[in-house]
């Protein structure tokens, strides 16, 4: 990773709508360099997409989220990666992590209703032949994600003018 690459990632992580001109000024690189570097990061899939972070609680969309701890039995010729693939291909699944500790995979699932979510666990996830057990916990409230506090109520407490 070059300094320019890490600088650009830092800036885009905060605000991916910053125009190339400003990115160039702020990193001290030329417009062409910045454009080429970002393209390189995209091609190498370091940057996967540019998406806003949304606080769904403030929308009227019905939505249920759960974290499911999944225990699996890896089978011959089928390591964790293949089992994870069987799971992450479901549309309901938002994230899948391989974990150390008392279970193997952590699966973040989103559905519109509790019923849909229950149907996913009982009808799609649990029946997979390699899955030996699941423990589902529902998300009640989100406080902080990706470093962003959802309802911080934080204000700038600095004096308007100071020496």
């Amino acid at each position, binding site marked *: 990773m070059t300094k320019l690459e890490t600088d650009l990632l830092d800036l885009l992580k905060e605000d991916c709508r910053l125009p190339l001109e400003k990115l160039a000024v702020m990193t001290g690189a030329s417009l062409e360099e910045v454009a080429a570097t970002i393209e390189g990061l995209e091609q190498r899939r370091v940057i996967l997409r540019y998406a806003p972070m949304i606080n769904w609680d403030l929308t009227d969309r019905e939505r249920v989220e759960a974290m499911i701890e999944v225990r699996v039995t890896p089978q011959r010729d089928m390591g964790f990666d293949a089992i994870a693939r069987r799971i992450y291909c479901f549309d309901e699944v938002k994230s899948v992590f391989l974990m150390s500790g008392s279970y193997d995979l952590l699966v973040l699932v989103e559905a519109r209703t509790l019923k849909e979510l229950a149907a996913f666990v009982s009808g799609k996830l649990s029946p997979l032949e390699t899955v030996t057990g699941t423990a589902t916990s529902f998300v009640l409230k989100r406080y902080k994600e990706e470093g962003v506090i959802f309802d911080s109520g934080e204000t*700038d407490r600095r004096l308007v003018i100071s020496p």
Partner: protein
Amino acid sequence: MNYEKLLNPRITAVPPSGIRRFFDLAATMKDTISLGVGEPDFRTPYSIRNVAINSLVDGETQYTANRGLPELRDEIALYLSGRYGISYDPEKQVLVTIGASEAIDLALRAVCSPGDEILVPEPSYVSYSPGVIFAGATPVSVKTLEEDNFCLTPGKLEEAITPRTKALILPYPNNPTGAVMDREALEAVAKVVLKHDLFVISDEIYSELVYGGHKHVSFAAVEGMYERTLTINGFSKSFAMTGWRVGYACGPAEVISVMNKIHQYAIMCAPRQGQVAAAAALKTGRENGYEDVLRMRDSYDRRRRLMVDAFRSMGLHCFEPLGAFYAFPSIRSAGMTSEEFCTALLRSKNVAAVPGTAFGPGGEGNIRCCYATALDKLNVALDRIARFVAENK
């Protein structure tokens, strides 16, 4: 009661800070974006705050030694030797103060006698000249010029020296200009200092916030200057700890001892939790390569480039600041004084900046804008200034 008779005329004669006047106006405005702040927009890293919380939980609520907690003085000595190559004995040469501000005040009171002249390069931080007057001496302004990169030059220094000159305040990296002085420039000043046997109060509060490959040089590290320099620094700017009020002075044991005499009678000690947090900040920094300081500095640097570029795009001449977190553009092309410009900008566009004259008459024609402001707000403020400048061409 006749208060005029009661109050000390030497103090009442000092005009109130120009910043204060502007603050009163800005405070009445709503939805203002302020570029007039003089502190980081970062909060103190939580790990440091947590150390102070634990200290309270553990019941550490007593006075500390006058000179400061021994572990903090040890850390300060390690920091200055590791970072700037100057060694101080934590027992005799380090004094922890209530912000760098108290250190400046103590230094002036320790050094000044009636009739003494103290040289103050300007534009600079607002409290030096009043501090000299409060201490009973006479401040002598040494105007620094943009053509000299707002650095103090040996020529300007020589011109200001009289037989009464006792000390020089050296405020670099500089607030409000953002100027820095490299080793060569400091060595040139050192020659004059030595020739006239001056003492130097070096305010290095922005020492960590330097950009563009510049490396901060402590004046005490310049050959021959150690014995005649008081190094003042603190945690407010580099470590985002303004409200904790912890700073320090390091220098010759004889000077520190006299400063401590005033400090112990007037103040007793800096607040304990601030000292505990400051010691943790230095220890953590020493162990992780000053990760937090560098992260904040990188962030300021990006915004610095953005602000300077924006002013230049507006057609305003803007000196390239290489230190602190201020830009000091010239607003002469708008045909207004600094104060008129800032007042009109505030009233018509709800953006607060500080008139350059708040930092001495040499600041006329410039305004100070702080880029330690969230990027989205900074962009809005710069757009508003651009519109203001276009309307006033």
